[in-house]
């Protein structure tokens, strides 16, 4: 099963096996990864599952939808080139080993 690595604000790491087809938000919430809230349940309408994706995985992700873009642009926490919503990242073989950084706060 492909793996995802969540790096928290205090550098605490959680490595999870995430089945293909599951979103990183769901894996994080199911496994109580600190800092991922996921209030809207995965519709890109709450912005509480913001993560920053490491290279080389950024280019392997589909471009953000309009809702994801609106949400990311509207966040108060710093948004960088690798910023994505974890609910919009669906695990697949080519994402095996993906590392995402969880910001200090959401919203």
């Amino acid at each position, binding site marked *: 099963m492909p793996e995802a690595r969540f790096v928290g604000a205090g550098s605490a790491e959680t490595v999870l096996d995430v089945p293909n087809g599951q979103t990183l938000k769901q894996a994080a919430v199911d496994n109580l990864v600190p800092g991922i*809230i996921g*209030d*809207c*349940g995965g519709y890109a*309408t709450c*912005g509480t599952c913001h993560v920053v994706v490491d290279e080389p995985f950024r280019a392997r992700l589909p471009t953000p939808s309009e809702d994801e873009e609106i949400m990311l642009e*509207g966040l*108060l926490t710093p948004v960088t080139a690798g910023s994505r919503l974890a609910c919009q990242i669906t695990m697949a073989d080519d994402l095996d080993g993906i590392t995402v950084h969880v910001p200090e706060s959401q919203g």
Partner: protein
Amino acid sequence: MRRSPGATDLPPSISDLPALSDLVPPDVWAADLVAASEGLFERDVRVLRDSDGGGLVVVGHAAMRALAQHAEVGATPVEFLTGRSGERVRRATGAEPGGAGAFDAFLRNQVFTMNPPLHAGVRRVVGRHLVPRAVMGAAGRAERVIAEVLAEVVAAGGPVDLARDVAGPYVTRFWTGQLGIPVGTAARVQHLMHEMNRMFLFAPTVDDRARMLAATAEYMDLVGRTVARAWEHGDNALLADLARGLDGVDLPGGPAELGAFVAANFFDGFHTVGVALANAVHHLYADPADVERVRRDPSLVPAAFTEGVRLSAPLMLTTRMAHADVEHAGLRIPAGTPITMVWIAGNRDPEVHDDPGRYRLDRAPRLGTAFGGGARICPGRNAARMLGEVALRALTAATVEVHVATTDTGWVPGSGIRRRAAIPVVVRQVAAA
């Protein structure tokens, strides 16, 4: 459907669920939804059959979140809402309701009643202006307005009502300012909100209904007209952007007029936020030690707002509807089933919150249900939070003293809105310590 964590298995059919009216007499339910829900938790009942109409009633946190997030659990059509509201009058009074034209337009323009394919696009038109960054850009206006309102009540000297004289004027002046509505109109809008509040009554009289319909008609006309005028004037960027957004939604049945659209969708901003603020103040000031803690440490203000809204979510319940057959924890919910989400109960479920009825500033944050959930989660919640926090910061500032005369006035019964009958306060300016 994924099994939601903590959800116990339910029987396969709605008809096998316990009936709400068997466990809670209707007058007890209408009188105090919170106490009634607490009684259900004691019996370990979280999903019920609505004996009145074949729908579901959900009080448990896990089931509520799972169903709210389900893609097929959408909005209830306008016909259902207007039909039910007429039925309530018929039942309470035997009279035939009539004259609901403006109420119908009010509901039809709300994102709240829209379903796919219309819903997401129209929601985006409003939602993009309510993201955290956009909302924080308006915090300065909120600070100015609360300062102005507090100066007025300090000057008045005597006791005032927190909801009517502080929270209400604050949120209506804030939103009228944002939406280009003349400030002189704010007091009238606030009055109309109060009258429109009768739409949430469980057993309205003919008079309640007539007053609600008259207020809705005047509100839609007043706000609709003034917003349209401000937009034509061309100097309100928010209105210009909302108008452009609406133009971009070219699906049949979409909102056609900017004024009606703004009036319908910012209703919660005018009204619900004021109630939320009043409820948050009520809970905070119930214990002087909590007030002192927040005064000494303003970083507790967000917790004070969250905890107030957790205990007393202003919009206690709304009804969603299954648009396809849905399965939850073994229960089959046929398409067309109305699902009443008792949002206020989800926030008091002991499966999720320790000692749920207690106000605690140090409560670890948990996902709340006061703002709904899933794709339809309230887009206004960031604005509500900003407005609530700005006001609580002002009220607990070192230079302000708020004396709550009595916390013993009771919650208004028989309504889907949780609000106190009165919160008499005296607000004084004091020298900073």
